[in-house]
């Protein structure tokens, strides 16, 4: 909905030399006022005038514009402090929605979030990330459509944000993706971003799962109000999300926290932390204990299902299987030694552990705590808390929603679309869509037929 209000129509009266048009000056003030409202820094006209230092007329004018665009809502009254009750200025977070997804090695999660990054709904199901990328993209699209059918507001969808199991190279803060970055070897050459942009007609953002989960934990989990936090994700790969001074530290290439590549030694073997403490090693050791009969519990699982997963070793450890407990304890110690180094370097107030293996047993957490406390300076551990995440995979969805929300409303990005009323009219996105429609559409993925109805 482009703005057509009287303030934006050029006056027939000749302008003074060098005097900018309203349409040229409105965008920066709209951006500033909208972000003051959106972040909760101001919630009344008086507060907006005070914080922005714009005059009353400008604030009133811009709020009318933002109201017409559906981006702010002034229908609620605040508490009176002596005179008339002030009208509250609220960000219209339900103006549109953001689709979010986490792609994990063994699971896929989808959700719908409002423009403030709050999840409205979520769904998780088992998936195999080694399956053909076309099949997974089809499944993701089907779940997105189902979620939209049930939860998308009338304003539609303004973006898709993905959490993926690997560092995402080449993304600049705030920018949406125009091509698919290399994330997983199995996905090499598959146009995931282009496919989703074509299917849904919205910009796509992507971050590593450890980054999104750290952001989710910081904004909606145990990290609320924390300034310095380490978020450790334990899975096939082991990664760290580093929060310094309340901000996620991404590093020069978005690759900060790849601690799984660090060399460690275990039982006389040298290797990376991923290889010696990750879920592949836990699974391999569990299978070996089942096959040679050292663990009757794992042997029974193997007999029944024909395989042993890392999660089953983890659950067996929790149920009291001594061999499984030793496997988890060894992993916890190795990870703890590396985390202790990070803790000594960064002095966090909170370390949060996450991942299915951590969530299904207490032993890995206990071993990691022991290693960190044993190898850290007393000042570092004096008030340090080491806990398990309560958010599970929701952390990735919440974090992905925050990535899209912060990118959509980043000043540099917002000023390019706010006058049009929708990020889908941002010139860079319009040009991406033009490019994609000019290019030949990719051949249809070889997957199951899907009906026309919005079914998952």
């Amino acid at each position, binding site marked *: 909905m482009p703005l057509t209000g009287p303030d934006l129509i050029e006056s027939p009266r000749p302008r003074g030399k060098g005097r900018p048009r309203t349409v040229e000056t409105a965008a920066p003030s709209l951006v500033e006022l909208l972000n003051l409202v959106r972040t909760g820094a101001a919630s009344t006209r008086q507060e907006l005038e005070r914080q922005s230092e714009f005059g009353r007329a400008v604030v009133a004018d811009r709020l009318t514009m933002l109201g017409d665009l559906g981006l702010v809502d002034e229908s609620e009254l605040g508490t009176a402090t002596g005179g008339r009750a002030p009208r509250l200025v609220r960000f219209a977070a339900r103006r549109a929605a953001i689709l979010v997804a986490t792609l994990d090695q063994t699971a896929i999660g989808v959700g719908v979030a409002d423009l403030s990054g709050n999840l409205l709904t979520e769904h998780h199901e088992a998936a195999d990330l080694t399956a053909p990328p076309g099949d997974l993209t089809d499944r993701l699209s089907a779940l997105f459509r189902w979620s939209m059918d049930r939860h998308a507001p009338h304003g539609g969808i303004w973006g898709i944000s993905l959490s993926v199991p690997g560092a995402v190279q080449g993304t600049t803060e705030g920018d949406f993706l125009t091509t698919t970055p290399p994330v997983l070897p199995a996905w090499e050459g598959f146009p995931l971003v282009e496919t989703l942009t074509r299917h849904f007609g919205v910009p796509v953002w992507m971050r590593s799962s450890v980054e999104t989960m750290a952001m989710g934990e910081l904004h909606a989990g145990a990290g609320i109000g924390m300034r310095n936090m380490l978020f450790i994700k334990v899975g096939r790969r082991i990664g760290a999300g580093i929060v310094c001074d309340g901000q996620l530290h991404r590093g020069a290439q978005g690759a900060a926290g790849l601690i799984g590549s660090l060399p460690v030694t275990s039982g006389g073997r040298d290797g990376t932390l991923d290889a010696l403490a990750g879920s592949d090693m836990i699974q391999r050791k569990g299978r070996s204990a089942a096959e040679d009969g050292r663990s009757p519990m794992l042997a029974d699982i193997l007999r029944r299902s024909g395989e042993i997963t890392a999660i089953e070793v983890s659950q067996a450890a929790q149920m009291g299987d001594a061999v499984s407990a030793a496997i988890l304890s060894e992993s916890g110690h190795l990870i703890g030694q590396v985390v202790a180094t990070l803790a000594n370097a960064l002095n966090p107030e909170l370390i949060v552990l996450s991942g299915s293996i951590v*969530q*299904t047993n*207490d032993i890995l957490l206990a071993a990691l705590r022991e290693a960190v406390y044993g190898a850290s300076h007393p000042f570092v551990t004096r008030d340090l808390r080491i806990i398990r995440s309560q958010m599970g995979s929701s952390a990735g969805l919440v974090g992905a929603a925050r990535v899209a929300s912060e990118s959509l409303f980043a000043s540099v990005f917002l000023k390019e679309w706010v006058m049009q009323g929708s990020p889908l009219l941002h010139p860079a996105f319009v040009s991406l869509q033009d490019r994609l429609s000019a290019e030949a559409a990719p051949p249809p993925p070889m997957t*199951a*037929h899907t009906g026309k109805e919005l*079914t*998952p």
Partner: protein
Amino acid sequence: MMISGLGPHGERAAPPERVTLLPDDRAAAKAAGWRIAVVLHTLESDWARQQLSGMVGIFGDCGAAVIDVVDCAFSPELQVAELDRLVTLRPDAIISLPVANEQVAAAHRRVSEAGIKLVLLDNAPTGLLPGKDYIALVSADNFGLGKIAAEGLSPHIPNDAEVGILGFGADFFATNQREIAFTKWLQLNRPDIKPRVRRFARIEEAASTADVLFSDHPGLGGLFVVWDTPALAAAVRLTERKAIFPMATVDLGEAAAIALARGDTLCCIAAQQPLLQGIAAAQTVVLCLLGRPVPAWIALPGIVVTRGNVVETFQAVWRQPAPREVLRLLGLS
């Protein structure tokens, strides 16, 4: 049996054996003398009565008094009011089945903020976290139930047919999972089938929604309804319209068992284990009040029920004999 779904936050399921009570636990619980309240979506269904029966029995064994049992009649407004009332009674724990998502989330959060232990059944409103806003969720493997229903209905559906899916309009973890799993199974295993979805907002609207679905798609070759009570209401209406086709649903209520034994339309039921679920929920409450760690999601597997095994599964699920009418229809009495 394997649990095929994931929890509301992607959690892996813990089996109900994980919350088994030891004699010491029972003795410690008896000494404490706790007060517990239960808030259910309805008390009118066989499922709700059995679940309540499982809970009350365990609390009885553990010397805990059930001080209130609330029937929310599927109303979010009523549930919010009742939870706020219960908070003032200061029970030690509340077991609640949230009847909606966003509408009831804050009221459930107020329970845990008041220091009352909260165990959820079947649904976790978005934004509430285990360990912070509630202790644990106890539910069936609803994803598995949807798969069982699809697998059971599939052999009765001709090639390239349309299949109706009568879903629940409320944003509810359990019924969402069943609907998603049902369609996913069809898409993977019967891509020739075209799913046609309609959702009823209230249980009283199930029959009329089925009517609309059938009017829009008169060529329907089968129907899945996300639980038994609306399924039976839909079956009655469709039979009146001479629309007879195979159906599958979830929950082995008494009337559903009779319909399955009759064998006219209902061909498969994915059964929950409400009695065991009630027992698991009560045991979870006891363990958490004793300060023991409990898993975030405890899930019970579903059971495949057909006309051929309805008697024994009814006995296994309900711990009581199958209805006389079922035995008569199967020529067993």
